């Protein structure tokens, strides 16, 4: 297994920048996810690592060896594509065995040993009953697992996996996700994993890179990305419901700082948060504004006033979760979601009833606005 490193890597298509000066490293044995919306440049990075796409500028190294000019077959990586790329005239068994037979790796396995390895990975991914079939007789989800098995059957320097479970149905996706995590732990593999699904990235990764329009927005452990999003973009991308983002005005009164979203939503900002509020301040239409971010589990809801900083809003709608509810409030250009615990939580508030809200300032963030909230 290798350490994989990118230094100031840029990819241009014509004069369009797909990836701009991206640097990060995936340590030996680390599971690193590249997360981001469609078009962020995730797959382009993976293809450059695999050697399928050329780097326009910058450096890619495997264990400190520059691989920029090495063709794919000399990089010793295994790749699974979102589009499966199975050999249609090969049976599933031969598709999976293919990388074991490549002369480049000189494995020269005996028939029994080859069969043992193919069956092992097929059993692990629950596709051992498909080994004698042709790809055309498989469902999309089955094809995807065959493609994943083909990537995992060999022990290369690094695994490059591009949305390898995106086409599985929900139940199978979660169970395969757990298997991937088990695989990574068992073989201490270096894995670089591309996904647009934040839940996969959080669950699987040791570290994550969040990409936006070809640029790294945040890099860190999943806990950091979830608990302390660096920007409003990261907050809006991760969580269900995603982080609440509220635009408001900054008002200073008698030395105290207030954040005011509208008449009914106005709170005094605790001293230790004022600095981050000021950092996020922007000028707009003659006033100083910022964007507040808080996750739905960090807002308390009550029938009574909870503190001097509580405020009242009318309930817009209530949706349920298995053992909790999400009470929704309508703001000017967005919704505010609040999670309440307990099975009967959703019975507690009527439609349009005014509820008291109290934000937990330990989990309060301020951002410059870089995401258009109204667009959906």
């Amino acid at each position, binding site marked *: 297994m290798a350490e994989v490193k990118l230094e100031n890597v840029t990819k241009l298509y014509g004069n369009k920048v797909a990836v701009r000066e991206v640097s990060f490293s995936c340590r030996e044995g680390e599971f690193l996810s590249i997360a981001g*919306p469609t078009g962020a440049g995730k797959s382009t990075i993976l293809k450059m690592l695999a050697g399928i796409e050329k780097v326009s500028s910058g450096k890619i190294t495997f264990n400190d060896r520059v691989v920029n000019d090495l063709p794919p077959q000399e990089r010793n990586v295994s790749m699974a594509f979102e589009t499966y790329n199975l050999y249609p005239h090969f049976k599933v068994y031969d598709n999976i065995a293919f990388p074991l037979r490549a002369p480049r790796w000189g494995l020269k396995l005996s028939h029994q040993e080859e069969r043992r390895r193919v069956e092992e990975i097929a059993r692990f991914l629950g596709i051992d009953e498909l080994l004698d079939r042709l790809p055309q007789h498989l469902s999309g989800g089955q094809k995807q697992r065959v493609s994943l098995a083909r990537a995992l059957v060999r022990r290369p320097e690094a695994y490059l996996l591009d949305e390898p479970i995106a086409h599985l*149905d*929900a*139940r199978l996706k*979660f169970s395969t*996700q*757990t298997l991937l*995590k*088990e695989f990574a*732990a068992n073989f201490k593999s270096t894995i670089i994993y591309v996904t647009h699904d*934040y*839940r996969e990235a*959080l*669950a*699987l990764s040791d570290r994550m890179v969040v990409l936006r329009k070809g640029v790294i927005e945040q890099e860190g452990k*999943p*806990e950091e990305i*979830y608990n302390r999003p660096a920007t409003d973009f990261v907050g*809006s*991308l*991760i*969580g*269900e*419901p*995603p982080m609440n983002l509220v635009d408001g005005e900054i008002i200073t009164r008698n030395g105290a700082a207030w954040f005011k979203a509208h008449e009914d939503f106005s709170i005094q900002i605790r001293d230790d948060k004022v600095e981050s509020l000021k950092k996020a301040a922007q000028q707009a239409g003659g006033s100083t504004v910022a964007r507040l971010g808080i*996750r739905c*589990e960090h807002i308390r809801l009550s029938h009574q006033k909870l503190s001097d900083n509580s405020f009242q809003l009318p309930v*817009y*709608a*209530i*949706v*349920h*979760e*298995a*053992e909790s509810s*999400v009470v*929704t409030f309508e703001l000017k250009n967005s*919704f505010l*979601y609040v*999670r309440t615990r307990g*099975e009967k939580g959703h019975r507690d508030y009527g*439609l349009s009833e005014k509820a008291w809200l109290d934000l937990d300032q330990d989990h309060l963030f301020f951002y410059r606005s870089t995401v258009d909230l109204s*667009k*959906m």
Partner: protein
Amino acid sequence: MSRVDVSHCWKIYPRGNVVGVKDLTFTCNDKEFLAILGPSGGGKSSTLRMVAGLEEISRGEILFDGEVVNHLGPAERNIALAFESYALYQRLSVFENIAFPLRARGLSKTEVDQKVTSIAELLDLKSVLNKSPASLAGGHQQRVSLARAFIRKPNVTLLDEPISHMDQRVRAELRARIRRLHDDLGLTTIYVTHDQAEAISLCDRIAIINRAELQQIGTVEEIWNQPANRFVAAFVGEPAMNFITGRLESRQSVAIDAGEIKSVLPFTGEIDTKYVGAEVTIGARPQQVKISRTPLEQACVPGSIKIMEFQGEFTVLTIKLKDRDASEVKAVVQSAEKYSSNEPVWLHVNPDRIHLFDKETPILRRKSK
């Protein structure tokens, strides 16, 4: 708005004599939000299409407010439909798309204007009324499609997977909007989905259909706490309910064989004496499995942490039990509580959270709270 009764309905496709829906009976009450939930190919779309009048009913009756509607076409049933694909008229403006069902009825211009404006207000579409649908994002287009569906005060609203393919941000918003619209307009809504989280989020009651048959109909609480069979128990909930083998020690306790020690879990509820001593399947939801770092008297099962999957507020643990089958069990814990790989833990489940099955059938009866 209407009450909908589906009474002993069958859908038999003549080609190959395939039974799409088998003797289906359920009611969607007036102003109720009912989900039809099930895996694909289970019969839920055939059901929806029969209610909508898009598909002939092979046998049985469908009634709106007590009146049989079998012979009525979709238009005469006055049904609002919204699908996963928005099916908007791309050459018409958003306004004209929403107004379309009214134009067909020959309403006056002022009436049309007034109705479109009022529904556009509810769905926040006023600023885009003059735009073309193609220029809007997916979530926006679905809102236009909903506005068009709701504008003519339908008897019944049928929604077929309207939001499952959207990203989580849009999904959260549309869920809230759809629930609000339902409550505000006093609609009777039937919502078809394969996504159990979607059904739980929006609906008052859920009808679960699999293999052409109704498996259970009930409130979210009933389905969550008293699943009618093992299919329902496993289908609803994420991660899925854990199933482990045990032996009934008495009418109040079940034992898990863990080598030298035997873990005996007490449970509340009624069980037939004939099962005492029998091997059964214990069911426990991952959200209801409690984890302890130290052994607790007897009512716990030893194991060790195998995999941890961080999910934000929660983490899903996969725990390898020290039972005979080396079963794997999932538990959902608060992420603030930190565990490490291979750490020994003890599991317990509250007596009123244990489910027991004899093969597919639940055998523990419990009064609903």
